[in-house]
């Protein structure tokens, strides 16, 4: 069996002429990742042409560039070393490359052009927007988003469509998409999925990793289409419904309007968004199991129960605090509407807003310290593992809590052997250790990011919330970078680039980013001539 797998790997790697292809896993995966973006850009170009925008030819050109560069990298290389360090490096570098190259459509269509800023700042803004999109974060520097009744929007519909599409690609992860395309990764495929998957371990819902990836993408596409229908029924146009469903399924939070979902000021649309965000924040493997096998799978899953408990508790706390503080006039109805929407939006790391301008009900930066702390906690916790949501993930928080409980029990009974339990399940010490290390790395990134962003001129409140938001792929921050503002005014250009790096780190759950230089360094060491002993 193993020999067969190896043979198939070799066959895949040497598709035409094995000797001529360069063995480089990193370049091979990067090439394929770029290539899978190309069709999306082609669709965006078509949308731009249909909407009579100016950016159609440039989007078409970008599609071609992605196809050519990606194809060239793909066909000139083959899978080489598949050691864990190479897998981590391949995944991390493919995300960096796609995020940087993904800025090209924004640059060529001059989306961030403004009289005051230089071309380099325009490029930096485009890279920030692209990274925020592909990592499904949702932070934006685009200040020229249209209103619903804008007759002459500055940004074309195709460009906005591409912007929404970036989040959709990043939500489930394009490396996972690549795995479904690669002919034969064999048993190594799970390594790629695991390096990108949100959560401590990647769920396997089919015997073969490739099939797991394909099934998850099918559920993801199905959910997106379902959300499109729901949004349209609730009152959106087909274009708005589809573009918003792309970012809702991905829990990204980009909107095609300046006031996000607040632009519609519609309770049915907000209800659809709340349900859809919860679907996005739930493990997609659970969705598949629900559809295919077990109707009671949600009720049985302890992480899902904890996720719901966190959301319900946060809604209760925020509603109570807002009612006591009287920030939204003290009426239960509007307070409840605002609390539920914003808690779900931030608890699933989506980042949609329902404010209709600065200082209105949904503009949570105007709330008191209590609800803001709850929102910060939600931003940190995030959704479930295996979902498109960011954050530390509910399962990790539960394991860390269980860890503390076990240590207190051990302090009382030092010689006892107490397993780490989650409900009736026992968590292995290896997984618990991985989670602990992740938590420590997350904290280190938070501290480092906070120091870097404040050193680059940001205020403490904005910096803290933006660093947490970026690591959790959240979107809006607090203070001057809240839901009705952009990151343009609150952060300098270098600070935004630091935040963009943190977004990639957060999306890849830190470890891949921390190891991304290990494989290239090893390769360079191999190339470097050895010192002669004699």
């Amino acid at each position: 069996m193993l020999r067969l797998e190896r043979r198939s790997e070799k066959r895949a790697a040497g598709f035409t002429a094995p000797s001529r292809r360069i063995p480089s896993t990193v370049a091979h995966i990067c090439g394929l990742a770029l290539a899978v973006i190309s069709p999306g850009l082609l669709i965006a170009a078509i949308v731009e042409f249909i909407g009579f925008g100016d950016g159609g030819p440039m989007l078409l050109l970008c599609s071609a560039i992605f196809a050519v560069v990606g194809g060239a990298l793909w066909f000139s290389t083959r899978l080489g070393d598949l050691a864990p360090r190479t897998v981590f490096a391949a995944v991390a570098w493919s995300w960096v490359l796609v995020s940087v190259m993904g800025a090209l459509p924004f640059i060529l269509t001059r989306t961030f052009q403004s009289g005051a800023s230089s071309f380099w700042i325009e490029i930096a803004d485009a890279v920030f927007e692209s990274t925020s999109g592909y990592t499904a974060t949702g932070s934006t520097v685009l200040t020229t988003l249209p209103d619903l009744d804008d007759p002459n929007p500055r940004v074309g519909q195709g460009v906005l469509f591409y912007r929404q599409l970036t989040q959709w690609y990043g939500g489930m992860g394009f490396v996972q998409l690549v795995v479904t395309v690669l002919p034969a990764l064999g048993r190594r495929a799970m390594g790629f999925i695991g390096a990108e998957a949100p959560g401590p371990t990647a769920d396997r819902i089919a015997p073969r990793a490739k099939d797991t990836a394909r099934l998850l993408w099918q559920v993801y596409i199905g959910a997106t289409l379902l959300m499109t229908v729901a949004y349209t029924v609730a009152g959106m146009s087909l274009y708005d419904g589809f573009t918003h469903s792309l970012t809702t399924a991905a829990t990204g939070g980009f909107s095609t309007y300046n006031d996000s979902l607040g632009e519609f000021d519609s309770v049915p649309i907000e209800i659809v968004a709340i349900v859809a965000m919860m679907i996005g924040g739930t493990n997609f493997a659970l969705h598949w199991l629900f559809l295919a096998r077990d109707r009671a799978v949600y009720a049985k899953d302890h992480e899902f129960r904890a996720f719901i408990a966190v959301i319900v508790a946060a809604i209760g706390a925020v509603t109570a605090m807002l009612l006591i503080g009287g920030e939204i006039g003290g009426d239960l109805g509007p307070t409840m509407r605002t609390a539920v929407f914003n808690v779900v939006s931030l608890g699933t790391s989506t980042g949609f807003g329902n404010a209709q301008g600065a200082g209105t009900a949904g503009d949570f930066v105007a709330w008191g310290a209590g609800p803001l702390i709850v929102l910060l906690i939600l931003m940190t916790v995030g959704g479930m593992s295996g979902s498109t949501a960011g954050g530390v993930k509910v399962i990790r928080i539960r394991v860390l809590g269980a860890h503390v409980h076990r240590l207190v029990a051990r302090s009382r009974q030092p010689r006892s052997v107490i397993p780490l339990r989650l409900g009736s399940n026992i968590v292995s010490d290896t997984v618990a250790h991985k989670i602990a290390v992740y938590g420590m790395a997350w904290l280190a990134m938070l501290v480092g990011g906070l120091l870097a962003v404040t050193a680059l001129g940001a205020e403490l409140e904005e910096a803290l919330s933006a660093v947490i938001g970026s690591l959790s792929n959240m979107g809006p921050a607090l203070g001057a970078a809240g839901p009705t503002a952009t990151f343009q005014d609150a952060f300098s250009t270098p600070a935004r680039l630091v935040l963009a790096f943190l977004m990639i780190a957060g999306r890849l759950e830190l470890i891949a980013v921390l190891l991304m230089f290990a494989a290239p360094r090893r390769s360079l060491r191999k190339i470097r001539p050895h010192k002669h002993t004699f």
Partner: protein
Amino acid sequence: MAVTRTAPAVRAGTIHVLPKPFGIGATIGGVAALAAAFVGLLLDRNEALQEMMILVVVGAGAVVGGRTLGRFQERPKRISPPMAMSMLVAGWSGAALVALIAFALSGEFESIPSAFFEAVSATTTTGFTTIVDPQELTHAMRFLRVMLPWLCGLGVLIAGMGVLPVAIAGIELSPSRGLRRSEQLVTSTRGAVRNIFGMYLLLTATLLLGFLLGGMGPFDALSYALSTASTGGMANHAASIGHFDSAFIDWVATIGMVAAGGSLVIVWAALRGAWDSVLHSTELRLYGCLLLIGFLGVWLIGDNLTATEAAFSVSSMLSTTGLRSGNWAAGGSFTQAILLIGAGIGAMTGSVGSGFRLARVVRVALEVRRSLRGLLYPHRIGVIRIDGEATPEQSLERTYGYLWAHLITLTSIAVLVNVSSLDLMGTLTFSLSLISNVGIVLTDENIAAAVVLDRWSQTVAIVAMVLGRLSIYPVLVTIAGFARWLGRFRPHRSIGGS
């Protein structure tokens, strides 16, 4: 997996060993009250005669009561870790109770909860206060506010480095074996108490001399010396040490705070000339690096702060003292971030300072590095070595557990505490300051130690300060054990009843 059950933590035996530590704590509080009464007699004379009488009665009662309590208890044959933790909590409770009685009866505080807040703040060496201008208090009361942290700090040092390491082998953050063995700081409980007390007194005396040379009056010099050496941060003036507006005094306090935040084991080793052990201490090197980087960062990148103010602020926050000179909140967000992170990290193990502690930071950093290496080289077996010694895995696990417990506590405090006058960052810094026992809150481009709290927030703050000072676990273990002990009195359900 089978769960091996041993005896419950707080059983009858454990309860029986609590009176003596409680008595010792009460004696500490009593001594502080008597000392304050003596100072009042010298400086306040007839102005606060009633208050002095109260302090004498409370102090004498606490000393006599404390000593008497200890006599009723037999010396335990063996002190188990949960027992030691409960004893620590009992000891602190004794001191806090006496402090509460003294503050409440003095009539200087507007309510009993305010007096309780002040008592807990003093006995946990935090430094928060409900008094906006301490100059309104009598000399006796001001002295009590600084004497309590000094004595409780000494108690923490003796308990943490003297009694517990002798009683329990291999507690999580004991000094490295090399230092312990070669320098003979902790040979026996009596020896440890003598050595620790000697060094603590030396530091305080040096600070007293420095402050006197800087131009402070004897009372203020003694008060600030006690406050600095104990990292308590209680001040006699609303502007803290900034009141004197003297660079010399600032530098004396800076050096004092750095010394107070440093490990006494290392100071002991240095005094005995064992420089090899001192210079190889990873924790000390990290302490030095953080002080230097913090100072340079605040001085060079921050706005509006002089070198003296930068050095003062960094040492005040990293040692978790909380004394103030100048307004570092006006130094910009980078300064604020550095100082708040410093306060979160805290001082060295084996010092009076609080916070997460540098030894744990070292362990966490080395663990992350080991795990990343483990991912690169899966077959490699990594051992974490600190100061040349392999760190046991169980001890490392306790450190991670403590990290999560610390974060969970910090988050819970931030949610529960509700101060109407504070914005988001104010609430977060207040919570951090409580758990790290720093005693400084950030309010609208300003820093303060005086806070106006409602009853609920006062209660939360009191719990937070205690959890921070006693490193969370002892409190949790004591509560859990006490709950189990109470459960013994619950009527049993009959299984096969009639």
